[in-house]
């Protein structure tokens, strides 16, 4: 029994963290607040250089054939450094294309993703439509498939070259995942003003976008399910990184910040909040570890444990970052202190790909209701 990452996995995290600290961190996040999604493009060359864009790809395309378990600690590093880059989406796109796309699709996209030529994202969707196959429909008109509808909450959409979009075909064939170039005709992208400026989100409108045959991945259901599951693992792990970084900084802060003649960290109220938060962080850590393992082993219980890890990590990160603001006192409420960047990132991550409440409702169907049907 070995419930720990391997030495190699920790080493990869160390080197990713070193790079992210150099090119990311609060300064880069602030640049994204000011300048938008374009910041992600400026990070592409260094990420490519270190092989972080081709993680899941087969060696044929220059990738390292990594599982989401292998890469989990890298997502955590991205969270710790508030990396303003769609790392989860890049990994999802790579995984999905590598596993389920046609050879032609692979050749067209995978080398470019790996080389940092193509910035990929995923049209997660949000709002009332959830993350399922709603929002975008395909109509085949005169032999041409056209997309109509809307997806919301799409990360870095206005800077991306490639979007994975779940599509319901209304003229036969069922569900597919479309590979969309957001710069072509029939697309309208509107960036939303959102809480977390370090990961710009857009509404993407499909206004008759013409989808070529070889931009279609059929068997849409398993393709999209895989995307969502891996996305959730990545977001949960990123939320863990966000929380542990701000928690570590908060612990250091309360060791030195003095009030009433003592470091505030000597007061029980501070100690007990810190102890509770520590427990939450460590609990999210093992939940995420298990979820990544289940996802990689494609266990039948994987979706349930992935939902659990995402829900728990979301709640945890919201709480830990909120406490961080409180424990920083007035300073924590200022723009110049970094705490709020972590706070906003945590709350945004928790809201995407299933809020904690929504995920627990889905879990209840699998745990409580399934039990009833089993007798």
């Amino acid at each position, binding site marked *: 029994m070995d419930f720990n990452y391997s030495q190699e996995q920790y080493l990869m995290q160390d080197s990713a963290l070193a790079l992210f600290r150099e090119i990311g961190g609060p300064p880069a996040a602030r640049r994204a607040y000011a300048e938008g999604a374009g910041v992600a493009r400026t990070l592409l060359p260094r990420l490519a250089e270190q092989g972080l864009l081709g993680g899941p790809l087969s060696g044929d395309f220059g990738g390292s054939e990594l599982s989401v378990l292998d890469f989990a600690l890298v997502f955590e590093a991205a969270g710790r450094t508030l990396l303003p880059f769609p790392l989860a989406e890049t990994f999802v796109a790579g995984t999905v294309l590598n596993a389920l796309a046609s050879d032609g699709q692979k050749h067209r996209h995978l080398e470019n993703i790996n080389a940092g030529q193509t910035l990929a994202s995923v049209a997660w969707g*949000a*709002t*009332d439509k*959830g993350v399922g196959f709603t929002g975008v429909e395909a109509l085949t008109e005169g032999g041409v498939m056209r997309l109509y509808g809307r997806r*919301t*909450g799409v990360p870095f959409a206005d800077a991306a070259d490639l979007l994975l979009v779940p599509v319901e075909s209304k003229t036969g064939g069922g569900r597919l995942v479309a590979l969309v170039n957001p710069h072509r005709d029939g697309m309208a992208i509107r960036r*939303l*003003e*959102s*809480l*977390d400026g370090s990961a710009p*989100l857009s*509404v993407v409108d499909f206004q008759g976008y013409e989808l070529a045959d070889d931009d279609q991945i059929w068997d849409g259901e398993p393709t999209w399910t895989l995307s969502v599951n891996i996305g959730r693992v990545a977001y949960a792990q990123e939320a863990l990184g966000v929380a542990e970084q701000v928690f570590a900084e908060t612990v250091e802060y309360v060791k030195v910040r*003095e*009030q*009433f*003649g*003592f470091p505030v960290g000597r*007061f029980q*109220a*501070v100690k007990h909040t810190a102890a509770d938060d520590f427990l939450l962080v460590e609990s999210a850590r093992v939940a995420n570890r298990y979820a990544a393992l289940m996802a990689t082993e494609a266990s039948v219980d994987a979706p349930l444990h992935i939902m659990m890890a995402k829900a728990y990590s979301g709640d945890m990160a*919201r709480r830990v970052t*909120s406490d961080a*603001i*409180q424990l920083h*006192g*007035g300073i*924590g*409420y*200022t*723009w*110049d202190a970094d*705490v*709020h960047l972590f*706070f*906003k990132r945590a*709350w*945004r991550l*928790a*809201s*995407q790909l299933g*809020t904690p*409440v*929504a995920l627990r*409702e889905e879990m209840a169907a699998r745990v409580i209701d399934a039990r009833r049907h089993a007798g």
Partner: protein
Amino acid sequence: MDLSFSPEQEAFRTRVQEFLAEVLPKSPGAGRRGLPRDPAEQAEIGRWWEKTIWEHGFAGISWPQEYGGQGLTWVEQVIFSEECARLNAPQGLNGLGKGLLGPTLLVEGSEAQKQRFIRPLLMGEEIWCQGYSEPNAGSDLASLRSRAELVGDEWVINGQKIWTSGAHHADWCFVLARTDPDAPKHRGISFLLVPMHQPGIKVEPLVQLTGQAGFNSVTFDDARTPKENVVGSVNDGWRVANTVLSFERGPTIVGRYAGYMREMEALMDAAEAMPGPYGTASRDSHFRQRMMEVWTEIQILRLHGYNVITQLQQKNRMGPEASMLKLYYSEMHKRLGDLAMDILGPDMPFSQGLESLGGGVLHRAFLGARAETIFAGTSQIQRNVIAERVLGLPRDERH
């Protein structure tokens, strides 16, 4: 027990309602939904509001007529606050002047100070800010290091104040400064009134996590004020600053209630609109429970307000338990904000569906509530105060 108002009080309420119906449509911000995001525009409205209520005889409702007040009671003040909050009337620009300095002067000020300062304050002609907190003395206010020295007929002030809201609009600042460096921590502090428009004062904005600059840092570099501008005795400023704090907190409660109720309405609107597995969030038992919990807490805030008013009427004084109300509403407000975000669900990063963030009352509650548990005494400090001063638990020598 009788919560009804006297006929005179009901007549007063009618007068307030008529006043609001008349003037609100003329507000510089009228017709727009929510507050303007531009701080300059906010200030303009705040200034207009001060002037308007003065002109219509609603400034300083419970303050003595001889200094420009209306000579009425707490009850009329509460009625006014309640009606204003209900109709979302603007915030005046002189909140600190009216909420803190005025009451302090009325109790602790000299006759000359009252004559000099109260009327311009009520007219909105002299806006006040508060110079209490310092960078290295947040919750531990009494550790302040700003110093004032008497040089001839003037106090000469040096030091830095922080979290001074509205300093860039202010004409005067009430400042706590150390006037006897050798005295124990809580002694040797004086309460000074300092004009802002002088070369020795530098005001710099402090941007909050909302992206807006509501606070300032104020640096005093040989700033001056005449010798007579000390309230109470020299070196007795700590007591002066504290006597009025709890005294003033009560009557604003009912106004707060109305404000929170408006947010609750917005929250229930959002719940009605957000789809979910049970139809809408408003039909989802999980959210229904949480909504009724928060709704209950808001209702109880109103009842705490009634209790405060009753005590003020009966004893003209609040007990130390008034300090509990700030803890109560700030923590409650945080729960309200968090619940609102949970109801917005996947739309949480955006305000009101896909509208912009800044305009949303729910997002303002969510982010603003995080300030309330920190400033004017963190929730941690409030709990200490309740435990030690109200419940009599042993004091820690450390505060």
